[in-house]
C-alpha cells in the first residue's frame, strides 16, 4: 500500500513537468468491474484532470505516472445513498410537516472525520439523507467523501426529495397528525408541482401497507419513485411487480449483516426479480456496504446486480449517473482498487481515488 502511494506522490511532485495540471495517472489492474457489474478484463485505466480518460489494454501515453496492481480489481467508487455522515444536528426540520425547501447540504460538516473513514473504505459519494420525521423532508445532499486535495468532504449538489408516510412523520403537536390528513395534501402537491427532470423521489416505506400507499400515491401521480428500506416488500411483492398505476424504479436496502434474518435478506432478491434496481446502503461504511451485498448474494441475489448495487444503482438514485457509478471514459475518476472481487469480504482495499485524488491511507500499525 505504501509503495504505490509513494510513487504517486512522486509523480505528482516531480519537478520539470511544464503543465499546471498534474500529470495523468495510469493504473494497471487485472480486472475491471463493468457497468453491468460483471468482472471484465483488466488493463490500463488512464486518469487525467480528475476524470477517466481511457480504459484498455494499450500502453498508457508517455508521461503518465504508472501504478500497477498485481491481482488488482478496479471497481467504481461506492455510492451510499442513505447516510448521515457529517450531519450537524438532526436532519428533519420539525417546524413544519412539509419542508421541500430544506436541504441537508445546509447541515453538512465537511471536515467531519467520518468522511475520511468512508473514503478509505471505498465510498466516494454519499447521500446525506433527511431524517424522516417530516412528510416531505427536503433534499438529500450529494457529497463526495473527499475534495480535490483528498481531505475534507465536498458538497456537490442537492439530490432528490425524501418523503415519509410512516408513523414517525406524524405526531399530535402539528397538523396533519395522521396519514389520513396528510395524503390529500400530498396528492395535491404532487399534482400541482412538476415532476423533477432527473432523479427520482425517495420515499420511506417499511410495511406492506406503507408500500401499497406509496405505490398508490406516487405511481398514481405518475412520479418516478424509489422505496427507502421496504422491509416487508415480500408481503407486497405482487403490488410492486404488477401495479397498474406505476411501480418503484429502485429500492434502497440494508445494511445487512451475518445475523440479518433470511426473510429480510430475501427481500432484495424478490425486488430485483420484480424489476426493481436495488441500491445497497451501509450507513456510509464501505465494509458494511460490501457485507450487505455479499449477504444478499448468499440468498440468491445476482452477483452482477450486487456489484451495481454498490455504486451505479445509488448514483442513479442521486441523479449523478453521468458522473459516477461506473468505470467509463469521461466519468469522474472515483475508483476503488481492491485485491479481489468487492463481494469477497477477504478482498482488501488497496487504493481509493475521489475525483482522481488519492485518499490518504490509514497509518498501519507497526
Amino acid at each position, binding site marked *: 500500500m505504501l509503495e504505490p502511494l509513494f510513487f504517486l506522490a512522486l509523480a505528482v511532485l516531480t519537478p520539470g513537468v511544464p503543465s499546471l495540471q498534474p500529470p495523468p495517472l495510469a493504473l494497471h489492474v487485472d480486472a475491471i468491474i463493468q457497468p453491468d457489474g460483471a468482472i471484465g478484463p483488466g488493463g490500463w485505466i488512464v486518469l487525467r484532470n480528475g476524470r477517466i480518460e481511457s480504459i484498455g489494454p494499450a500502453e498508457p501515453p508517455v508521461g503518465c505516472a504508472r501504478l500497477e496492481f498485481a491481482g488488482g480489481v478496479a471497481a467504481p467508487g461506492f455510492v451510499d445513498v442513505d447516510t448521515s455522515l457529517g450531519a450537524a444536528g438532526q436532519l428533519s426540520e420539525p417546524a413544519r410537516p412539509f419542508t421541500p425547501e430544506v436541504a441537508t447540504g445546509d447541515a453538512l460538516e465537511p471536515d467531519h472525520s467520518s468522511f475520511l473513514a468512508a473514503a478509505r473504505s471505498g465510498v466516494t459519494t454519499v447521500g446525506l439523507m433527511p431524517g424522516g420525521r417530516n412528510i416531505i423532508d427536503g433534499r438529500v445532499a450529494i457529497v463526495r467523501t473527499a475534495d480535490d486535495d483528498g481531505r475534507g468532504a465536498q458538497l456537490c449538489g442537492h439530490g432528490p426529495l425524501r418523503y415519509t408516510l410512516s*408513523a414517525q412523520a406524524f*405526531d*399530535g*403537536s*402539528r*397538523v*396533519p*397528525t*395522521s*396519514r*389520513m*390528513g396528510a*395524503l*390529500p395534501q400530498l396528492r395535491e402537491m404532487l399534482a400541482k408541482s412538476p415532476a423533477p427532470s432527473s432523479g427520482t423521489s425517495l420515499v420511506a416505506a417499511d*410495511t*406492506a*401497507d406503507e408500500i*401499497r*400507499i406509496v405505490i398508490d400515491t406516487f405511481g398514481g401521480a405518475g412520479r418516478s419513485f424509489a422505496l427507502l428500506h421496504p422491509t*416487508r416488500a415480500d*408481503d*407486497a411483492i*405482487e*403490488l410492486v411487480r404488477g401495479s*397498474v398505476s406505476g411501480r418503484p424504479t429502485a429500492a434502497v436496502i440494508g445494511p445487512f449483516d451475518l445475523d440479518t434474518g433470511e426473510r429480510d435478506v430475501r427481500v432484495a432478491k424478490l425486488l430485483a426479480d420484480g424489476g426493481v434496481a436495488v441500491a445497497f446502503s451501509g450507513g456510509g461504511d464501505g465494509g458494511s456496504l460490501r457485507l450487505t451485498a455479499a449477504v444478499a448474494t448468499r440468498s440468491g441475489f445476482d452477483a452482477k446486480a450486487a456489484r451495481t448495487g454498490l455504486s451505479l444503482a445509488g448514483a442513479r438514485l442521486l441523479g449523478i449517473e453521468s458522473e459516477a457509478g461506473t468505470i467509463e471514459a469521461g466519468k469522474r475518476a472515483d475508483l476503488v482498487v481492491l485485491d479481489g472481487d468487492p463481494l469477497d469480504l477477504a478482498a482488501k482495499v488497496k487504493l481509493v481515488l475521489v475525483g482522481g485524488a488519492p485518499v490518504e491511507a490509514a497509518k498501519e500499525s507497526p
Partner: protein
Amino acid sequence: MIATLLAAALTATPGTAPETASAATPALPRSLADAVVLQAAEVHVGDGTVYKPGVVIVQDGRIVAVGAGLPIPAGGQVIDCGAAFLTPGLVDAACQLGTNALFGSAEQGSEVIPQLDTGDVLDYFSLEFEQLAADGVTTVFVTGEASAVISAKGVAVKTAGPIAERRLAPTKPCVKATLGAETSGRGAFNRSPSRFGGGPSYAIRRPTTRMGSAWVFRKALHDSIAFRDAGRASSDGLDPAAMRALGDVLSGATSLRMQVREALDFDTSVRLADEFGLQFVFEYATEAAQRLDVIAARKIPVIFGPVRQSDSTFESFESATPALETPKLLAEHGIVFCLTASDGSGDGGLARQTGLAIRFGLDRAKALRAVTVDAAAIAGLDQRVGRLAPGLDADLVVWNGKPFDDASKPVLVLISGRPVVDVQGRFRKENP
C-alpha cells in the same frame, strides 16, 4: 383447487326435490363448463328463502344461479358440501378493524373531517382481515373513527382477495358523527399517552362536554351552509373541503350516521336532524331499546351492537338486560336493523353477536338477514353483496352446523368465488 379443500367426496348427483317451493329454474347464461357448483343440505339465501337441499352455481366470481334441483351444467366442477349449511358471506356495516394506526387512525387536526377518507389509513395486509374472513365476515364497512365529532368517510372492503379488487363503492359515500362520550369524554386525552410521545396536542381544543360535541356539530353545519350560500369562510378555520363535504351531507349526496350509545344522545340526534333536515342511520345504538318508538316512527335504520359483558353487567350474558334483547325488540317494532361486532372478531365477532341475538329472542331467519341482506342494504352495498342471488359477488360461507350456533363454525369461505378459508378454518394467503 376448491375440490381438494373439501374433504367430502365429489358427487355429481342432481339435487333432490326442494322442500321449499322454488321459482322456475332460471335460464342459465352462456356455457357453464367452467362453473363451480356448490350443493348443500341447506342453502340460505339471506332474505329468508331456504332451499333444502340447494345448489349455488358460481362463475367468474359471481353467482349465476341459486335454487333447488337446478340442472348441473356439463363440465362444471361440483362441490358436495353434504350436510353443511350455506349462507352468504357476512357483512359488518360498522367495523372498526383493519386500520393501521396504533392509537386511532383519524386525523386529530380538526373535529370535523368529512372530506377525509378512512380508505387512506386502511391496512389491507392487517391480520385482522384474515381473522374476519375466517369468521365468515367477507365484507366490512370500516366506519369513521369516533374521536372526531364529524369523522372521515368510511370505506367498504372485502376481507380477502387481490387488493386491487377489495374496495367496494357504496351507493353513496358515508360519514359518521359521534355525539356521545367518545368525543367529549376523551377531551384533552384524545391523543396518544405521553409515554408514547403524545405531547401537547391539537386535540386539547376538543369539546370536553356533551353539549360541546353538539355545538361543534351544529357550528360545522351552519358554517358549511354559509360557505355554500355566501362563500363565507369559517370563523373556526374549517377547511373549505370539509365544508363542501358537509354540503353533500346536507343535500343527501353523502349519507350520515350518528354514533350514539346513551338514550339522551338519541334525543340530541333527533333534534339535530330536525334542525337541518337530515336523514341518518344510528350506529351502535346501545340504548336503542329505550327509544324504540321514536326510531320506529321516524324509520331510522339501526346498526346495533356489539353487546359485551361490560355493556350489560359483569356477571354473564344471561342476565336479563335490555341490550341483549334489543335485536328482538327492534325486529318486533319493524325497525330495519343490522348487527355489528365493531372491533370484535373471533369469539367476540359477528357470528357470536348474531348467536347472542338469537339466544335472546331474535328469529333465526331475521338474524341471518341482519348480518347479510339488511347489513348490505344499510351500508349501501346491496348491489354487490349480502344475498345469494344471480349477478351478485360469489361470497359464500359453508358452515359445519346450524349457522351462529356455538358449536358451528365456517369450514369454507369463498370471496368472489375464490376460497379464502379452507376446511380447517385456516386463512389462505394465496387464492387460486
